[in-house]
């Protein structure tokens, strides 16, 4: 049942699968790969999430103990430094474990960098799956959200020139900024229901962003997801 966001989502979810599948359930034992990291530290609960892979940038762990927003420049520097030591080419002594940690780092890094993937990861760890395709009806999202989606789809469909698309792009980017700000508030207050709703809208807006980016005159626009 799909429009523009499909392939995008498939790519993203495929890349994130190992992490998203396991997630950071606070009460469950950490996975083998993650244990490799938690053994090096002595603070149990936060070490079960991918936040513990980057102790310098994310010392307070995931929300609600730490902030939702992340200093992505600092994260990148720490990631590159860690990658230098965990890259399989440099780990001749124990190739199996280093391969695991290198790919784990990669996927943890890309999850944390993206506000959408980060939010989905955090919610998944709390037992909330925002990707369920059959999430329909008013009780799940509310009429105003459905109206917003419908109107946006119509405006993209009816857009006739680059100028109109540019206006939509600017509006969409502003919406994304606002959604991320609101997500920050929701996660910091541990309001998971608000976070879920905002994450659903953020996923939609990311799909719209991609659709508007790919827009060309005369070319049919679709939300691929």
């Amino acid at each position, binding site marked *: *049942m799909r429009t523009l966001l*499909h392939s995008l989502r498939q790519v993203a979810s495929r890349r994130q699968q190992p992490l998203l599948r396991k997630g950071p359930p606070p009460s469950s034992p950490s996975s083998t790969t993650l244990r490799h990291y938690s053994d090096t530290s002595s603070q149990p609960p936060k070490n079960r999430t991918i936040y513990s892979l980057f102790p310098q940038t994310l010392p307070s762990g995931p929300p609600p103990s730490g902030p939702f927003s992340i200093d992505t420049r600092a994260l990148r520097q720490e990631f590159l430094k860690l990658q230098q030591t965990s890259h399989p080419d440099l780990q001749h002594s124990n190739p199996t474990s280093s391969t695991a940690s290198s790919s784990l780092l990669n996927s943890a890094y890309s999850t944390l960098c993206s506000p959408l993937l980060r939010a989905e990861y955090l919610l998944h760890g709390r037992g909330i799956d925002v990707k369920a395709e059959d999430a*329909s009806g008013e009780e799940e999202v509310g009429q105003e959200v*459905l109206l917003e*989606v419908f109107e946006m789809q119509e405006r993209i469909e009816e857009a006739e020139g680059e100028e109109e698309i540019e206006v939509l792009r600017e509006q969409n980017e502003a919406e994304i900024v606002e959604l991320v700000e609101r997500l920050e508030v929701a996660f910091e207050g541990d309001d998971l229901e608000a976070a879920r709703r905002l994450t*659903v809208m953020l996923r939609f807006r990311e799909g719209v962003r991609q659709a508007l980016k790919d827009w060309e005159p005369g070319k*049919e626009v679709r939300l691929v997801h």
Partner: protein
Amino acid sequence: MFAVKRIATELARPMANATAAALRPTAQIGARRAYHEKVIDHYERPRNVGSLPKTDTDVGTGLVGAPACGDVMKLQIRVDPTSNKISDVKFKTFGCGSAIASSSYLTELVRGMTLEDAGKIRNTQIAKELCLPPVKLHCSMLAEDAIKSAIRDYQNKNPGRKPTLGPDA
């Protein structure tokens, strides 16, 4: 699973622009599970596309969807207040071929029906008619939700005439 998704992606486009050029070759690749011809027929020639004036008191609007995917289905019914029958029906769906076909077929089904009968339509009826595979059953559920939501909207607008027939009368 992957093949189905791939074909679904081919089909996924806003329906008002539905050109079928890319559809046929994909749907004909033998080894892959393709859409049933009934789905393709509704997708290529969707029935009753459009909208009715939302503010008319005899019009009920149902809007349902999965916003994360950008899928959204709008179904509108016009009801004859004397017979309580659906005299006109329009839809517009952004989604995959199955979602478009489910809503298109639904409009054919409910035209001329009483609200009571239309409210009894189940998604299984739509899925069976269109031969939807299990991964696409949620599309038919969306269509069922849409007609229910449209009926509810009409009844909220016209509280006096709510039940004229059936057990609630």
